């Protein structure tokens, strides 16, 4: 079909954006002499309705079968004009954009030269458009289910939203309980709601929801496939406790020979737990788990005459024979809500975190003020008889944030407010405490934040601008060495307790998630969103979305908002049931492919694989593109040494004449 190209060239003035620097009439006149050009017109706004109407009428009346629009960047209006072509009954991919705005009129100052360049760009587009082929988009079905990795508040919220919309959710959590970091918090800023009180109902909901399959103490091992059709493999680690039998009575933990001897992760290693344990009282599921790295029976094969937990459990739930299980299922979309780690304060040795027991992190203080914490809510520093209630307390902000020396240039967004909150809580618990906060800046940007900061200051918390240089011991006091930069006064502040407002970092195991889904990281090493403004929950991989701190530091309201955004993005795919696959994708000429696999490694989307083919009895390996995964970036085509990978609409034989025409004209 379309043996003889009949090309229409449409030159846009773009108001004066183009016509000011480019002689549009001269370009029009020039284009009319180019080979195969039947119609040339110029118009003030080609993208407007009358502009598009011109095109549609010409396609119908003049029998045009190829269109060049000389206007702006294809990123701006390629879709607009494709629709125009389609509306006129032409294949939308018979369009070539000649960018004479961003790449010409906007960047030049000489009208004559710019006009000359515009002519070249148009002739080059005309040379290519003749060779374009009709392309067709295809559709694939979307499996009506979502995988959510991480069951902190982000994962929980996204799971509930999707499940409430009537779709299946597989919620996978690495640790024995859902809840994430939010479950460790005491109160939340700026409203001072009890964190557990607002979180636990949601935790219970995800466990009970008929559409949610909750997999705690589990790890996603493999994700293959593409948008709409991901194959997931999850390892459910052995808990050595029968979930159906355990009544969470807790006798096992009391009886455990290691009771009170293992640092509790939930309490930031300040409290103790047993080898068989419930991470925290409100854990969901409320089922005990045996720590395989600590349990005497599992590490040494022997625990006295017989394991005490086994003897103690009336329900007979302890089962050392339990094995890991592998669950495999299909989902249409994936939400990554893997959260964050707090900055390791030992990386700032000048603050003495690893050295002094009365230098603690914000999260540790959070556990100390919490009623479910190791001290039952009393701020007690030190162990046993030496424990004391601190009176002089200093907070240091931006520890591990806004600090190039530790590689974290970014602001962690929560430390200013959690410091204010903790300062307030300290005042509640120790009314005669003197609290001061050393800060670089106070960023109270959210709803109610500035008001809360103001309230805390009125309560008597002193804010001193200065970044402490050193913390050392003098007698039984800690000395914070700092310069008050507002008054230019060097200070040596003697205190009982230093609280480091540690920032948020990407999880240490972030690599595992990257390898699962081929995600990209931004320069701060958090996951990279598809567009910082217009696609903040999307990733470069279709059907994979981000929620919560995995994408960057954020507070609970922002995390919940983003989780709802990710859920709604996933629901768009799930509820439409179909997903369109791009047409300008790559393909492999298997006859010339030498199977080197360069394209496989180059492809950022994992869209190419090597497959074995039988050619006249010989087994050869060649590359093959998965149409659903290919995004048409063209990296494979550029990397292929034998020219066997080509990208539709950008094939060598289409591009070469486009370049060649520039060489012969003056």
């Amino acid at each position, binding site marked *: 079909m379309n043996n003889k190209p009949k090309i229409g060239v449409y030159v846009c003035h773009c108001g004066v954006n183009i016509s000011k620097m480019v002689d549009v009439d001269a370009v029009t006149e020039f284009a009319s002499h180019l080979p195969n050009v039947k119609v040339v017109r110029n118009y003030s706004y080609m993208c407007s309705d009358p502009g598009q109407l011109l095109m549609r009428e010409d396609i119908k009346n003049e029998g045009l079968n190829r269109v060049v629009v000389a206007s702006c960047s294809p990123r701006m209006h390629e879709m607009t004009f494709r629709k125009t072509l389609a509306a006129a009954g032409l294949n939308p991919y018979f369009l070539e954009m000649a960018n004479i705005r961003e790449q010409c009129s906007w960047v030049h100052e000489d009208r004559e030269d710019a006009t000359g360049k515009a002519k070249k760009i148009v002739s080059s587009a005309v040379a290519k458009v003749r060779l374009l082929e009709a392309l067709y988009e295809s559709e694939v079905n979307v499996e009506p289910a979502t995988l959510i990795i991480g069951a902190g508040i982000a994962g929980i919220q996204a799971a509930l939203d999707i499940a409430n919309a009537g779709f299946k959710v597989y919620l996978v959590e690495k640790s024995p309980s859902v809840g994430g970091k939010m479950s460790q918090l005491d109160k939340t800023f700026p409203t001072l709601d009890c964190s557990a009180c607002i979180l636990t109902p949601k935790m219970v909901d995800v466990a009970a929801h008929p559409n949610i399959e909750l997999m705690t103490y589990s790890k996603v091992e493999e994700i293959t496939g593409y948008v709409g059709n991901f194959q997931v493999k999850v390892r459910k680690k052995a808990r050595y406790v029968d979930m159906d039998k355990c009544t969470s009575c807790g006798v096992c933990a009391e009886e455990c020979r290691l009771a009170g001897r293992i640092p509790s992760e939930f309490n930031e290693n300040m409290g103790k737990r047993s080898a068989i344990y419930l991470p925290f009282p409100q854990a969901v599921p409320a089922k005990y788990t045996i720590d395989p790295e600590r349990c005497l029976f599992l590490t040494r094969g022997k625990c006295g005459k017989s394991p005490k937990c086994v003897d103690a459990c009336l329900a007979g739930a302890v089962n050392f024979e339990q094995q890991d299980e592998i669950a495999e299922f299909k989902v249409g979309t994936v939400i990554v809500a893997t959260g964050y780690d707090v900055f390791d304060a030992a990386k700032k040795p000048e603050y003495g975190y690893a050295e002094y027991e009365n230098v603690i992190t914000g999260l540790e203080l959070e556990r100390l003020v919490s009623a479910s914490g190791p001290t039952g809510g009393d701020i007690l520093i030190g162990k046993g008889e030496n424990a004391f209630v601190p009176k002089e307390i200093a907070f240091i902000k931006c520890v591990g944030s806004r600090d190039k020396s530790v590689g974290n240039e970014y602001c962690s967004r929560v430390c200013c407010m959690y410091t204010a909150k903790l300062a307030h809580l300290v005042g509640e618990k120790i009314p005669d405490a003197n609290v001061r906060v050393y800060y670089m800046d106070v960023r109270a940007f959210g709803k109610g934040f500035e008001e809360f900061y103001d309230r805390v200051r009125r309560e008597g918390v002193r804010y001193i601008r200065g970044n402490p240089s050193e913390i050392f011991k003098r007698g039984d006091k800690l000395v914070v060495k700092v310069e008050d930069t507002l008054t230019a006064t060097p200070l040596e502040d003697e205190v009982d307790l230093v609280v480091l407002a540690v920032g948020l970092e990407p999880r240490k195991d972030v690599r595992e998630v990257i390898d699962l889904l081929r995600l990209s990281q931004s320069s701060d090493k958090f996951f990279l969103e598809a567009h910082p403004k217009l696609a903040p929950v999307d990733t470069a991989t279709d059907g994979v979305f981000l929620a919560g701190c995995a994408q960057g530091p954020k507070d609970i309201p922002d995390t919940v908002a983003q989780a709802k955004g990710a859920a709604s993005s996933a629901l768009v795919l799930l509820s439409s049931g179909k997903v369109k696959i791009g047409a300008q994708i790559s393909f492999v000429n298997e006859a010339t492919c030498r*199977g080197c696999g*360069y394209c496989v*490694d180059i492809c950022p989307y994992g869209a190419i694989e090597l497959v074995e083919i039988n050619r*006249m*009895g*010989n087994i050869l*390996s060649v590359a093959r593109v998965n149409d659903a995964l290919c995004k048409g970036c063209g990296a494979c085509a550029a990397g292929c040494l*034998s*020219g066997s990978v080509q990208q539709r609409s950008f094939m060598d034989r289409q591009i*070469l004449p486009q370049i060649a025409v520039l060489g012969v004209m003056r």
Partner: protein
Amino acid sequence: MVDLEKMRTIAKETVSRDDVRYLIGWRQGTYGFRVSPHFMKGPEEAEKLIFSPLCSNNLATYLTLTEKLPVPRGEQPDSRKIAVMVKGCDSRAVVQQLIEKGIERERVFVIGCPCEGVLDLKKVEEKFPGILSPVEVEWSGDKIIFTLPDGVKEVPKGEVLAKKCLSCRYPNPVMSDITLWDEVKSLGDGNYEDVKEMEEKNPQEKWSFWKDKFSSCIRCYSCRNVCPMCYCEDCVLDRLNPQWINRSANISENSAFQLARAFHLAGRCIECGECERVCPVDIPLMALNRKLAKEVREQYEFEPGLDPESKPFQSSYRPNDKEDFIL
């Protein structure tokens, strides 16, 4: 020390194995200093094999050229190994072919021949012109011993060794299934003095140099055909649609061909120097290849053909890759 007896014994054993199809080694050529590849199919041919300073040929080239003939219905394709004798540089070609899946590890048996440097025949034939009968040549410390029709001649290595050998860092095979004799010391430190010399020229000087060289190219494609890394069955530079390079041998098309080939070899060339050796019009092709090798090594700390498990250069990306040289 080269031990020809051992070499022949092992060749016999190897070629007699059920899982070996044939062995590629070197044999005396038909005249003068020439050496040919020998495709040995049975143990009786072992006596033909030689290893001497004349064995420049990189036999790894032949591994990827094995023709895949149609397999008659009901039969299995021949999956036996091909045994190949390699010097240090040749072994890097084998490794690079493995990296880019040009060959499979289980289909090749590598016999390593540590090498004290091969001769530049152009230098040798200038020194001993007009010799047609086959000649024996041996290494002896820092000298090469020529047994010529008119007697034995000793020549210092530096006068007759190929340029690539004088700066060679890999005289011993980097990978082999069996190594025939003790490892030898490398002759060079792998510096890029020659490249730096070229870099110091100004663009006009460079262009007049290459214009002169490229205009003499007759596009015989010897450089491509001998290259162990050029083994696409259908070379992109031969195609007619699209025709990147037309067939006529002129300065424009010749330059395009040579530059395209050099870029296809960036991060892949293992510097065996075969292209330059076989060029009938003496184009210093290694000057191009070594310039790119230098850039790849300095900018990305990457050297091809060393680790069969490594990722190919073109497809390995590190977020901290340098990009300050991009214009």
